[in-house]
């Protein structure tokens, strides 16, 4: 029981996401932070108030943290499945598993 609870806590803290999710997170970081920086400059320049630049920039950064850091469900839409269980010696013979060009299994 306590083991199970601990497992859940660890999963929540680690917040693992799948490969496609990692690609998406990387792209979103660049786009969101870059946009926040550009918008921050222009908002400040147009209103001639440098503090507005600071606040827009910080708000954009906070938003980015919120979008990227937690393991949101849309980062786990393409989970990588496990191979089928190998209960007999011949069970996997119909699968082609390549490791660095060498056929294994």
């Amino acid at each position, binding site marked *: 029981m306590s083991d199970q609870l601990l497992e859940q806590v660890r999963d929540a*803290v*680690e*917040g*693992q*996401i799948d490969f496609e*999710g*990692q690609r998406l*997170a*990387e792209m979103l*970081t*660049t786009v969101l*932070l*870059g946009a*926040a*920086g550009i918008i*921050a*400059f222009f908002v*400040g*320049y147009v209103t*001639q*108030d*440098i*503090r507005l*630049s600071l606040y827009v*920039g910080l708000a954009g*950064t906070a938003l*980015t*943290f919120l979008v*990227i*850091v*937690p*393991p949101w469900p849309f980062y786990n839409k393409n989970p990588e499945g496990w191979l089928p269980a190998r209960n007999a010696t011949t069970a996997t013979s119909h699968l082609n598993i390549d490791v660095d060009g060498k056929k294994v299994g």
Partner: protein
Amino acid sequence: MHSALVRLQNVFGFFTTVAFSVAAVIALSSFISPQTPNASIQLRNVQVVKGRPHYYSYKKEEYANIRFDLDADFTTLFNWNTKQVFLYLKAVYPSSSASEPASEAIIWDAILASRTAPWHTNHYIHPDPKSGKKKVLPKKSKKAQAASKTKPTPDDDLLFPRGELHLNNQRPKYQITDITGKLQNKNNVTLEIGWNIQPWVGALTWTNWQKLGAWEALKGGRSEAFEFPEIGAKKKVDKKELETEKGGEGYRLEVGGEQPIRKPSKV
């Protein structure tokens, strides 16, 4: 980017890059903001006296008290990236030996705050040219006073637009002395204005005597040459004429200023 910790580090890392880049662009944006400063300075009165210019002077020396008129428009020095402008007026006179560069001594200065700078006691308050006194603001409650002290001074509370100066027969803030202890009969003295623009982000910039892109050269900025008179040329020197202006920086221990309290000597 597989775990939350790695994503946290990646986002923060890229944030620092973005913050630095935006700061760099803001710093560069100062250079495309046009500047058209102009200033006219006129000497009103100059006196040289022998005495102790400061209470800590250990010997008598010659010091000069220079009064001036200043009409200046530095409004264009304030752009969105300006925090404050430090203005100073200096007396420039040739050194005793011709091979040495001219001596410069600051006689008056002021910190002009921008619209975005929070209130500070050292910020310059323009005196009213009619009464000669500092503008008395309408009375506020103590709470409102305390609240306004953290906020920038609004434009409505200013006598002139930010950066505009109209000083008439202005007393100097500092009396000047020379390293040789002698000032009388010096020729070819001029008053010269100078400034530092202190930005929120970017480089500190000095007076532009030359045109630099969108920054026009300062128009005027120098007074006509005059000379330090001989001591005693004027029979009686009124003590009031030797007074200096006190800034907001607290009292200064100078002639006519606050004197330290001494224990009465036992004689």
